[in-house]
């Protein structure tokens, strides 16, 4: 039986690998990705903000556990992130930048996540995996905790995207079937939401695809096109929309049968916010398959994070963050929670 520790390590390794693999494909069209790489299967460089913010989220959980609140998250931004922002904040998304402006203006959550125009950003979804690790088999609690983080920097569908990913990882941590993992994601967001509508549409596209449709090049191209048609917003110049990224990532997870390499390589072939889509698909499938499910050649490329985006986490390795989260779970078992 795969242990929580093993799944936690697989989850964050998968997240880091998906982030790094997808980074050069971000904002490219699927056709351009095919032209450059055929299928993008080898990690070229380091990860991005997705991995660094996930490491930061893990540290919040390690310190505050189930007692984490939006006020504590805001305090961490003020104490650990803002003082180190001396110039441009590299690699951060508009939602984090807007949040820091709001905190500097003295606002408190939830207004900090509402006053900028990027409440639906996938910035929470990209760092939601640690919350799922921390709540194995309890998607509702994972969703409740990630929402505390999300209230600081997002609103509306951005928070729902984080809830969906945390819920999916919480289910994957118990070895649920891939379809049940996606059901868990849907169980923690309202049916009447953009996130739920997008996830259902994307899931239906994958379910309706002919068997073996993702293995042949022609079938796979058709699936990519159908997923874009189903959930991609065409007339907006940025790609970091949580409902879209979460739906595409969970679709890739299903299309890859929950296997890390199949899910992540398909995820990054979709383009758009490819690093985040890859990171989410990698986190969910990594939690399901454990550390051994992440290709060894990818794991070998994952180094400690550089702190380019978040100096406070520089030098931390995702595996250390995973082990600490697993230690926290073991402590809880001892305490009989």
């Amino acid at each position: 039986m795969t242990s929580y520790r093993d799944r936690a390590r697989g989850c964050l390794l998968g997240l880091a690998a998906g982030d790094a693999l997808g980074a050069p494909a971000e904002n490219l069209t699927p056709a351009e990705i095919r032209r450059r790489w055929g299928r993008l299967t080898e990690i070229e460089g380091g990860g991005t903000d997705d991995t660094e913010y996930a490491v930061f989220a893990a540290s919040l959980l390690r310190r505050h556990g189930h007692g984490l609140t939006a006020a504590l998250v805001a305090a961490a931004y003020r104490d650990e992130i803002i003082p180190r922002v001396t110039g441009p904040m590299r690699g951060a998304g508009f939602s984090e930048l807007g949040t820091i402006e709001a905190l500097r203006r003295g606002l408190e959550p939830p207004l900090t996540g509402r006053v900028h125009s990027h409440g639906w950003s996938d910035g929470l979804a990209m760092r939601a995996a640690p919350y799922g690790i921390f709540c194995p088999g309890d998607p509702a609690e994972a969703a409740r905790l990630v929402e505390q983080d999300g209230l600081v920097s997002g609103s509306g569908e951005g928070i729902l995207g984080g809830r969906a990913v945390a819920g999916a990882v919480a289910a994957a941590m118990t070895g649920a079937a891939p379809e049940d993992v996606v059901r868990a994601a849907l169980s923690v967001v309202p049916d009447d939401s953009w996130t739920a509508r997008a996830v259902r549409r994307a899931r239906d596209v994958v379910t309706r695809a002919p068997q073996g449709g993702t293995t042949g090049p022609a079938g796979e191209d058709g699936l990519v096109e159908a997923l874009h048609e189903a959930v991609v917003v065409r007339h907006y110049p940025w790609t970091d929309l949580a409902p879209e990224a979460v739906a595409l990532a969970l679709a890739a997870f299903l299309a890859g049968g929950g296997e890390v390499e199949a899910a992540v390589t398909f995820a990054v072939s979709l383009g758009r916010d490819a690093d985040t889509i890859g990171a989410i698909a990698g986190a969910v499938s990594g939690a399901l398959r454990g550390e051994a499910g992440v290709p060894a050649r990818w794991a070998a490329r994952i180094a400690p994070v550089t702190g380019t985006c978040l100096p406070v986490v520089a030098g931390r390795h995702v595996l250390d963050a995973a082990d600490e989260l697993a230690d926290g779970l073991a402590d809880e078992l001892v305490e009989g929670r």
Partner: protein
Amino acid sequence: MSGDRIRGDRIRGAVIGLAVGDAAGWPASRHRAALHAPWSRRLHRELDAFAEEHRVTTLPVPFALNQPTAPLAAGPSDDAEWLAWTLLTADRPRAAAFRELAGQDVRARISVRTALDNLARGVEPPASGHDNPHHFDDAAAVRAVAFGVLGRDPEDDALVTNAGDGVLGARAMAAAVAAAVAGGDVTRAVAAALEHLPADTAIGHNARAALSAAERAGDAFAAVPALDAALLDHVYSYGVGAAQTVPAALALAVAAGGDLTRAVPAAACLAALADSAPALTGALTGACGGFEAIPEGWTASARTLAGCCLPHLAGQDLIDLTEERA
């Protein structure tokens, strides 16, 4: 003036006031240049790149090389056209009215473009406005001026293209315009708007912050830097967020005592918001002060639509249209 005459004057004031504000903002000439051939607009973009590359501060403005020059004259653009379209279609079920635009060569805000895609995909209101990256913009707030002058609820219309602050902004604008058309002064109009803007929303928070900042500054022009500091998202903005433009309009209308000739120029000085804050400010103060109070030169320049966003409205006279429909 009699009650009916005052009412008619204020209705015309709201509509023409919006068009005057629309024309006063610098983006109007960019929108109107959409009437020029694509190759001409491409030359403009190349000149922009040239200025960047050669480090010259001579910024290109829209020009007409072998093109008609009329679009480059001062005049109304996107917001006046969408307001006119709303007056013309106000009796139609709203999703149906938008569906009729499918396949036409229209230009619109991101919220509207995405809503049209959603409708085509079978995503109906309110999801068409909600599953929308720009659900917060002020496209519906601009259209709400039509519902304000007609004394109708703007919500069904707003929900087609917007959600959250975008819908609240529409309700606030319609309420303010309706209060002014009914004879209220600017204080009464702004109070009517605030009733629709809860303090725990971005638009409600910003509206109150903007009103305080403008009050401290003393008058509309003096309030410009304070509004910039209190409202503008310098990290990222398309400039048409309802949570910024509607509060700016409310605050400047009050700071100017309801006088369009003081409020609109100040709104046009908020460069990042100059696409629509002057138009919304013009609608509010036009409704408060009436049509007769708007300088004749501005009325003459702003009354004829160019068709830069809705080509079938080219040449439409906004005053005639208002008298027919409102």
